[in-house]
């Protein structure tokens, strides 16, 4: 095989590959919007949105109300938490599959009702968003939904873990290379994120930072997925005119950190 033959072979063999251009563009746009929101709000979590669902949360609620995650065998006793970039950040964590090992239980639009039920709030108090800024993303192994609760924004995202950086990498964003040669450190200043082990799961805890808009979140690596929930103290990351000086509706994000951790480590998301 000569050099020019390989080029020709590659060209011929891929020229008529079936491709869903619109699907790729839509997927790229949705992920791009989510990533942009994450950068702008300085959380390590993401975004996107949908319509309200009421009933399924009741079905999913017992495991959350009964005390959160299903107990797991802890491979090795370890510290409750570890700092960013610490090799011990995964100490005590149960080894997780690289890719999803089971389906997700609910449609994206049903996820807010799970959160509401776990918080003991009426499921009807969550108002799911679905517009150009908050597109619903509802695929078999990827769900993204935005909703409003108490006038603030909440985002739930479940994505395959193989697409994400690791917990330790996200906790130490300086270690993540970017295309511009800059590290993730260009995110706004805030308290450092922390990679903990909670019930055998790696959990990235992203505290609220001290800007006019506050967001805090948690994400857990479980069953080959990353489950993340982000809570804000504003109705949205930007005003309708695109400006970013959104007036907060409360001092702190609506969902406390301990409840966020309970949520992301729950088994209620999985079939």
């Amino acid at each position, binding site marked *: *095989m000569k*050099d020019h033959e*390989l*080029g020709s*072979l*590659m*060209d*011929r*063999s*891929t*020229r*008529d*590959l*079936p*491709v*869903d*251009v*619109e*699907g*790729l*563009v839509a*997927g*790229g*746009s*949705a*992920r*791009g*919007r*989510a*990533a*942009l929101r994450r*950068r702008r709000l300085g959380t390590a979590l993401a975004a996107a949105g949908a319509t309200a669902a009421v009933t399924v949360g009741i079905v999913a609620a017992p495991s959350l109300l009964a005390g959160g995650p299903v107990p797991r065998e802890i491979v090795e006793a370890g510290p409750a938490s570890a700092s960013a970039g610490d090799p011990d950040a995964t100490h005590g964590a149960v080894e997780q599959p*690289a*890719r999803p090992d089971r389906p997700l239980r609910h449609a994206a639009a049903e996820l807010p009702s799970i959160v509401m039920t776990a918080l003991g709030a009426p499921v009807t108090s969550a108002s799911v968003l679905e517009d150009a800024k908050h597109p619903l993303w509802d695929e078999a192994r990827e769900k993204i939904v935005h909703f409003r609760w108490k006038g603030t924004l909440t985002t739930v995202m479940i994505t395959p873990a*193989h*697409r994400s*950086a*690791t917990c330790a990498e996200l906790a130490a964003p300086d270690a993540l*290379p970017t*295309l*511009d040669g800059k590290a993730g450190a260009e995110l706004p200043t805030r308290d450092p994120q922390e990679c903990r082990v909670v019930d055998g799961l790696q959990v990235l805890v992203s505290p609220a930072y001290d800007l006019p808009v506050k967001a805090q979140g948690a994400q857990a690596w479980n069953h080959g997925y990353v489950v993340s929930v982000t809570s804000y103290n504003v109705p949205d990351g930007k005003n309708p005119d*695109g400006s970013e000086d959104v007036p907060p509706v409360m001092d702190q994000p609506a969902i406390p950190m301990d409840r966020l951790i309970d949520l992301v480590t729950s088994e209620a998301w999985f079939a």
Partner: protein
Amino acid sequence: MNHAERTAAFEEFARARAQHLHRSAWLLCGNRADAEDLVQETLAKVYVRMHRMLAPKLENPAAYAQTALTRTFISARRRRSSGELPYADLPDRAVGDHATAADLRLSLADALAELAPVDRAVVVLRYLEDLSVEEVAGMLGLSPGAVRNRSMRALARMRERSLR
């Protein structure tokens, strides 16, 4: 350029470039599902870059996208456990008039699958994208000499395989 104009520019670029990116992605990943995933991740990075408020205008979005695609592929492979196989991906099947091209694709995918991810990226950039050694070196953060060595090694391995 406001947000709506940036989004329109992104969508125009993405529609024009998606098929080309998909071809590279397919050769890198060897199956449709992973290739589509890689293209969407790549387009997301282009979206973010095009929407960053203080960033200078993207002079060559096609080159940026190609670099993003290749680096995203290599990073993802580094994170995965080595030798892992997708558990639910079926190979693209030959259908009707496309049988010959599909057979060719599968043979090529098999040959590329035996290469290390970086070597695979070098081969795709050099021979599908027709980039120079220097351009590939710049994209992958390698020296030109390393690109030449990897390219020769990869071709030799593919030739060896085609003789089996």
